[in-house]
Each structure stands twice: as C-alpha cells, then as structure tokens.
C-alpha cells in the first residue's frame, strides 16, 4: 500500500478521525505536498518537507501567520533525508548527499544543490536515507540492507557519519536492516533510532525495534543473524547467538514500520512528556491485519531505558485501510509538534491546551 501520487485537498484530510489524549488539538499546518516525508524547521520558522516517492523538497514559509507552500528544489531522486545546520540545508538522495547554503535567502531561487558526498551504493531496496546532524556537528545517515534478508556487503546495513563538508567518513553502527528515524537523547547525548525488521518470517514476528547507540563504532544490532534481540534468523542464524549483538531497548510491534522519532524538549506539553520519545509508526504494508498507523510515546527512565510505551495519536488505520500514514515529527519553537503524513501529502500541527472557544479546528488558518 504505497501513498498515492496526488495530495489530498485540505478540506478532505482525515483530522476528524484522529484521536488524541485530552486537551491535545490537531490542525492542518500545510497540505498539497505529494508524499510529504521528513520535516525540518529553521530558526525563522520555515518548514522544509522532503519526499521519498516524488522528486521534490518543499518549503513552507510562515510570514505573519500566512503560510505558503512552495517547491524549493525538484529533479531529486528519493530525497527522503534532510537536515538543517547553521542555515544550510543538507539533502540525502538515494546515492548522494548535497547542500544548499543560506537556504533561507534562496527560497524562491534555490540553485542545484552542491554534492558533498557520493561514496554510496545505488541499491533501491532500503536505499532511501534519513539524515540528521549530531551534537558533534557531523551528519549521520543510514545505508540500509539491499534486500529483505541477506548477508549484506560490508558497505551496507549501517549508520555512517561524515563532517559537514563530506570528509572523514566513519561507520558508527552496523547490523542494521533499515533506519528511517533518529534523534539524540537531550541529556545523555546518545543516538536513538528506529529499525524496521525483516518480512515474511511470520505475520507476528519479528517486531520492529527502538535502538540506542551506546558504543559508537562498536555496536552491531544483529541483522541478518538476530532479530528483535532474541530470535535467530532461520536461514542465517546458525553459528550465531543473539547475545553477540546489541539488544533493542524496546520492541515496537511486528511490521509496524516505526519511522520518525523525536525527543520532546518543548515546554507546551504536560511535564510527563518532557524528554519522552514520540515515534511515528507508518504502519504495515504486507500484514493481513494491518498494524501501526499511529503515534506512540516512549517514556524513559533516568538511565535512558524505556519505562513505558503508550498510544498518543491513533485513527490513521480504519477497518484495515489507511486514511493517513504518519512519517516524521518535528518540534516548533513554542513546543507544539508538527507531523507529516505521506499518504495525504500534508503536515499537521499538534498543540496542547484547553479547548478553544469554538470546537472548530483551525483548518485553513
């Protein structure tokens, strides 16, 4: 079930079907962006939206409350990964990483991005990338396994980091099938990431994972030998023990496809959400009874382990059909949260506060 190539008009978006905890509100932030995927927000409040199945990066400007969606760059190939740092937009396509300096000054006349790193394979399976900048001012991105299940070449199934100019590549984690979401613990400064596990083993196994990179350069998360920390692969597991590998810190459901994840560091939501991780589960594609299509929140212990996982936004899955599919989460300066939906080509904003005077949602605001 892939997202359609036509965005849903804003008045047809499924907001009324979504369920949030008490006193949380959801509204349309921007729409009309086919296959809206990764979200990044600049200091000036411009929201950058990537795509995976289209060729475009969008910019959503916000001037005095008036929002405008414009294509920033087109002609890209699977430009899923984007990151912002010191005014530069970094773009990860299938097999190259490029940048646009001072992007805020070029929202209407952005030139072709300048390539900074292209020592990358071109495999289609799990070839799309998630891109982020770490507290060490380096770019982090994934190279997925070129298959559902196989012994990957040494260049694959890993997370790499490079300097902002593309130099100094290091592999920081291995044995990872595919990552489509990473973020740093705001206090421990450790990299957390979601991982999508293999298909066709069974409908209920293995579960997708939430991982933590405690030992950069050393941790191996088990692919293709061990799944979900305790299941040896039926084909490749022989001769290995799951104890050889770094275990997940939480299991996120079989084939639920957890993608974007974000530590909540804002002030708007109640205190119980401080430093918790919001995780967008895109939802399963091949499972008979679909699972996911929601936002869950992982609350953590002081040592960074997971205390609980609870539903936060549900309702994207209705009668075993998707009415939307959540992808990435970003925080605005005021502590409200943005959420992308690649099924409808839209971005939503989630706020906390007692109900407004009218029950109407802020559609078109």
């Amino acid at each position: 079930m892939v997202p359609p190539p036509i965005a849903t008009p804003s008045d047809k978006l499924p907001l009324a079907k979504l369920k949030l905890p008490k006193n949380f509100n959801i509204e349309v932030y921007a729409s009309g962006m086919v296959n809206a995927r990764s979200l990044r927000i600049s200091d000036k409040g411009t929201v950058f939206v990537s795509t995976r199945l289209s060729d475009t990066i969008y910019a959503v400007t916000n001037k005095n409350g008036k929002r405008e969606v414009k294509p920033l760059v087109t002609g890209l190939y699977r430009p899923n990964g984007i990151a912002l740092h010191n005014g530069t937009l970094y773009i990860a396509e299938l097999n190259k990483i490029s940048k646009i300096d001072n992007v805020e000054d070029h929202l209407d006349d952005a030139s072709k991005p300048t390539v900074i790193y292209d020592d990358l394979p071109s495999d289609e399976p799990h070839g799309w990338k998630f891109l982020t900048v770490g507290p060490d001012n380096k770019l982090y991105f994934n190279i997925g396994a070129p298959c559902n299940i196989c012994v990957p070449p040494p260049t694959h199934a890993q997370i790499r980091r490079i300097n902002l100019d593309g130099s100094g590549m290091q592999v920081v984690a291995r044995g990872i099938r595919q990552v489509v979401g990473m973020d740093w613990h705001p206090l421990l400064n450790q990299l957390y990431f979601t991982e999508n596990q293999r298909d066709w083993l069974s409908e209920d196994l293995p579960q997708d994972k939430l991982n933590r990179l405690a030992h950069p350069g050393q941790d191996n998360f088990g692919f293709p030998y061990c799944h979900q920390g305790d299941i040896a692969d039926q084909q490749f597991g022989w001769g290995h023990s799951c104890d050889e590998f770094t275990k997940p810190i939480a299991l996120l459901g079989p084939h639920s496809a957890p993608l974007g994840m974000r530590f909540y560091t804002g002030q708007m939501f109640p205190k119980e959400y401080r430093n918790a991780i919001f995780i967008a589960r895109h939802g399963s594609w091949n499972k008979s009874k679909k699972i996911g299509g929601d936002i869950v929140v992982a609350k953590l212990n002081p040592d960074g382990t997971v205390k609980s996982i609870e539903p936060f936004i549900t309702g994207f899955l209705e009668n075993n059909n998707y009415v939307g599919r959540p992808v990435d989460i970003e925080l605005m300066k005021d502590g409200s949260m943005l959420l992308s939906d690649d099924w409808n080509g839209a971005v939503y904003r989630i706020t906390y506060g007692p109900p407004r005077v009218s029950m109407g949602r802020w559609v078109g605001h």
Partner: protein
Amino acid sequence: MRRASRARTIVAALLAGALPAMAADPPEKLAPCLTCHGTQGQSESLDVPSLGAQTAPYTVIQLFMFRKGLRVGEPMNAMSKEHGVDDLQSAAQFLAALPPPKPPTDAGYSARLERGNALARQHHCVVCHRPDFSGYENVPRLANQREDYLLKTLRDYKSGARHGYDATMAEVLQPVDDAQLVELSYYLAHLPAFSAEVPAGVSTAKPTKTAPAQSTAAPEPAPSSLAAPTPTSPSSRLSAAKISELLGHGDADLKRGDVASARLFYERAAVAGDARAALRLGATFDPTFLGRAGLRNVRGDSAVARLWYGRALNLGAAEAKPRLDNLDERQGR
C-alpha cells in the same frame, strides 16, 4: 439449432448489461494511447502492456511517473507531459472498466505452470497481487498480461533499469534469478480465466453433464501475436478421434492409480483445448477428488487444480464451477 439459441442468449446478455460499458467512448486525450494499448484492453504490440481492467491507482501512479520523468520510456514521457491530474484519473478509470486481457489460446505446459505457480507463492507475489493476480489498489493486475512485457518488466526491476514508484519490486526480486523470471512471466501470461470473468450467460447456459467436444465446436480464434513465441508452443488442434484416444488412455491410467501417466495424457488433450480433459486434469490435483478416489499417496495442489478447473470452465465445462467453489471453501477464501 442449439448453438444458434445460445448465441442469442449471449447477445441478449450483452445488450442487457455489458454493452453500455463497452460502448462508452474513451476520453478524447486517451484515443492515441489505445492505438498501441488496444481499444478493448488487449495490446497487440510487442512490449506494450495490455491495460484492460488494470487497477486505476496503479495506472495513475505510472502516468504520474512518466510525466515527471521518474519512469523513463518513450513515447510515454512525451505523451503524458501535457496531461493534468484530472486527465490521469479519468484515463485510469476508463482503462479499469475495459475488459481484462484474454488468456492465450494454448493453456500452457503444466510443468512450467506448476513451476511458475510455486515461485509466485514462494516469493509472496500473491500477497499483494492477489491469488488470481487481478491486482488491488496500487498493485497492478498481472493476469494474462503479455508475456514479453512481463518478462521485460521483471528484468528491468531486477536490474534497476526501471525504478519502481517505491522499492518493493526491487526488494522482492533480489533473490529471484533470471530463469525464474522467465517461468513467472510464462505462468502469469497463461493464467486461466477465472469464473468471475466468464460472462454470466455462458456458464448457466450449459448445465449438461457431458461437455461438448470442443475440437469440433466453434472455430478456434486465430492464433494471436499475444503469446510470445516459444519454440515449444504446442499445437492447439487435434482431431476428435485423437482427443478421445488421449482421454481413454488417461482414464485407464487413472483407474490403475497411475496418476502421473494420466496427467500426461489429459494434459495433451487439455492443452489442445478440450474441456473434459482440463476438468479431469484439474481433478488429479484436487485434494478432495484424490481423497475420495483413495489416492492418498498422491500430492494434490489446489492452486494447480484451480488453474485447470478455471480453464475447463472457460472452455465450457460448467461442472468446474462447483469444484472451484469447493476449492475456495477448503481454503476458506
């Protein structure tokens, strides 16, 4: 006499139901497309896909990709340039309402069909494309697509020459080798017409116990260029006497419990277009039949049984219908 009355029944059925859909004019901008893809959903051109009954969301995605240059192929890139979203959607809906492409006139070799059937299940094709390969939502219909186009498409996905809208096909074909792509294409092109695709008037018109000898009935359609030429392409014409002889040998073998030999005789007659042979061949794979006949040491295969029953039904043997239903019930579909 009888044939004439049956023909009248079919004409009446067409007038009552099917004609309005068939008579609908294509959207104006679609007319040039149909010169290659076929006005009735069936392409007669090498490497050009049949689009009849294709799932509309899939067609919209492909047109979107051609328009954006994400899928490369002329003349499609140039032809899709000028079209807006509404054009893409109306084209897709029109094509989805055209009749599905017809199965080839030869039923295909059962050994190859069995290999293709096994591969399609081993690699989970049926999960998304559906057990009858009619497709679903954005997942395309594959049943009776042109064999040359299927093979080219699979090879292009495998090599990366064709980028999918997403990476699913590249991923699932990763462990499939070229010889298997050839078998899959052959199997998908030769799928028998399923009961749902038989016009309602036909199956109810012939509730007879003895199927007519097809070889002496209406003339076979002229061999079309549809089936990619294979050096082993069987003849679809055998004399009535030869068919009877094959059936006799098959029956004798089956009575002795020699199912493997019986299948060979039945297959020859079934491939030549004989409904009774297709029905009996289906039975030799039908777990219910094998159980009742006490042939418990013979391995059944519901999927293969379904193939041949479907073929028998298509050739006019109405008895195949309850057997197909029985297979469906067993599988809990």
